[in-house]
């Protein structure tokens, strides 16, 4: 991986980390509300996958979507404003955390319905194929989503039509309180690729390089017209399913173990070891990310609520 991309991934992970921490602290101080699903601990997946995508490539995301959105080019201020339901947010306050989208940047949207994004991403890939472009699509989804019918239908469609798409499963071991062993009949969700005759790979979702290798292959395959790939990234979410989750289903020790596997720390060690960035540069990037997110929070906090008089706008495209 070239250093420029590595730096981009690092910077993106820092932005995501700061964004989530800020959202949490705003939530805890009652300045932000709603079903907020933080992806802290899972940043490597979004950042590494999206480092392979251009603006014209597509993603669909999930309820746990801040990371994907930021990695696909979302402005943190507009995203934070959306989390607060402000009129300046991506969705003018209509969508909230679970619907941040920016079609112009290829982000076809977070999605509050588990697995609903997978068929939509397949459709975007079909569109690229029909239009004869070299665009590709990525569908992000969780381990829990892999048990929905939509997962199956989307993967079969994509495989039988050889669509340029990558299915990226972030297996953080839980769907809310339900451990993947209780919900899912296979140890590795990547095995399900066999059901569609496509490549399926398990990677360490906290290791940028491991993810990168798999994504590189999948992108090449998609662009060569050979069809979809399934990549399962084993990872963990540090916080509850949502802000306010009592987390009765796991122990503090387990969380601690995974915090030790922090993807950002791991990348930092590499950057340090290989002298790609100096300590100072890294510190600077930390503080830049932090200021950017502070500014985003400021922007969001000082933005006005939507005007109720506009509530009926945008139901339809006015032909």
């Amino acid at each position, binding site marked *: 991986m070239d250093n420029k991309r590595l730096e981009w991934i690092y910077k993106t992970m820092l932005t995501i980390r700061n964004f989530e921490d800020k959202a949490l602290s705003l939530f805890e101080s009652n300045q932000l509300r709603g079903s907020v699903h933080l992806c802290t601990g899972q940043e490597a997946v979004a950042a590494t996958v999206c480092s392979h995508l251009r603006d014209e490539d597509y993603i669909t995301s999930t309820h746990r979507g801040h990371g994907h959105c930021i990695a696909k080019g979302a402005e943190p201020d507009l995203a934070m404003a959306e989390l607060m339901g402000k009129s300046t947010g991506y*969705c003018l306050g209509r969508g909230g955390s679970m619907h941040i989208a920016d079609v112009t940047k290829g982000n076809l949207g977070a999605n509050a319905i588990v697995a609903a994004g*997978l068929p939509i991403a397949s459709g975007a890939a079909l*569109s690229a194929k029909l239009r004869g472009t070299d665009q590709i699509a990525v569908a992000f989804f969780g381990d829990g989503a892999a048990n929905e019918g939509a997962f199956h239908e989307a993967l079969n469609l994509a495989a039988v039509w050889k669509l340029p798409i990558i299915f990226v499963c972030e297996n953080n071991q839980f769907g809310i309180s339900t451990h993947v062993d209780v919900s899912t009949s296979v140890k590795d969700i990547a095995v399900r690729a066999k059901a569609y005759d496509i490549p399926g790979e398990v990677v360490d979702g906290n290791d940028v390089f491991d993810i990168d290798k798999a994504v590189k292959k999948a992108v090449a395959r998609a662009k060569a017209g050979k069809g979809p790939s399934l990549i399962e990234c084993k990872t963990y979410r540090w916080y509850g399913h949502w802000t306010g989750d009592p987390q009765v289903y796991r122990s503090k020790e387990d969380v601690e173990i995974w915090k030790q596997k922090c993807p950002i720390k791991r990348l930092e060690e590499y950057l340090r070891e290989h002298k790609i960035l100096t300590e100072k540069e890294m510190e600077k990037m930390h503080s830049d990310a932090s200021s950017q997110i502070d500014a985003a929070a400021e922007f969001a906090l000082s933005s006005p609520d939507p005007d109720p008089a506009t509530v009926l706008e945008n139901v339809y495209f006015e*032909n």
Partner: protein
Amino acid sequence: MSTKKYAVAIRDVLQQEMQRDERVFVMGEDIAEQGGIFGCTRGLMEEFGKERVRNTPISEAGFIGAGVGASLTGMRPVIELMYMDFTYVAMDQILNQAAKIRYMYGGKATLPLVIRGQQGIGRGNAGTHSQSVEAFFTHIPGLKVAMPATPADAAGLLRTAIRDNNPIMFFEHKALYAVSGEVPDDPDFSIPFGKAAIMREGADVTVIATSLMVSRALEAAEKLSGEGIDVEVIDPRTILPMDMDTFVGSVKKTGRALVVHEAHRTMGIGAEIAAELTEKAFVYLDAPVARLGAKACTLPFSLVLENAVVPGVDDIVEGVRKICYR
């Protein structure tokens, strides 16, 4: 003008719109070689190839979702559902995704998408293949809903649907496919959404009927004219948007209205029409707005029973007499 069957009218518009705009493509079950089990895509694969006339796996949520994704990214998919009853396995993609995305994204996404297919009685296809399910798609904001009753309306409304930038549910009727009628040859012939058609003028009673019920209402009107009751028959053509103004205008003249549809009476679109029309025309009404629709049981397989469940000409005659207090 050409005389053609309702199914052919649909096919021809699909063909013309695919010729006109290469973003338009069709997909669905058995629409390629087979040309659709009701023939609505016959010949299209031969002309446009298998990419643009795309057989799908039996994965309705999957391919409707794919339609949403293709639409968001610049295509204009027209999806055939073999039976509109199968919307039930894809409801989330229709009601939560297609209908809501534009609004939820703050107006920053555009979703031109047509989901078309047939429904209704006539073939004794039993409970899960004979329903009329249009009402579901009028409750959740974001869709438009068309229900053509004639070959010309099928052509004109389908063209409008394909050129519209919104997701549209297009309800054809299996028993109408073989019905012939005059259709304008103009390749831009279209009928706007939200404009009802007055199928027969009359002074005494307004009958608002949809889809297959339009011809039954017209037949009933003929019978009633023999009794000295002059019936006005109106076909809404689209039920979302709904041309309430035309209904109100008619009721101001007649003072009485009966709504007739094939969907179940309970919570059918007649409920909305009756409630709204009453609110808008209360002082003109000489009788409550009445409703006819399928009885409150699953559509049975037996044709004897099927016919007993859905309003027939005699039921309409009876319904009109009742609100005329005769």
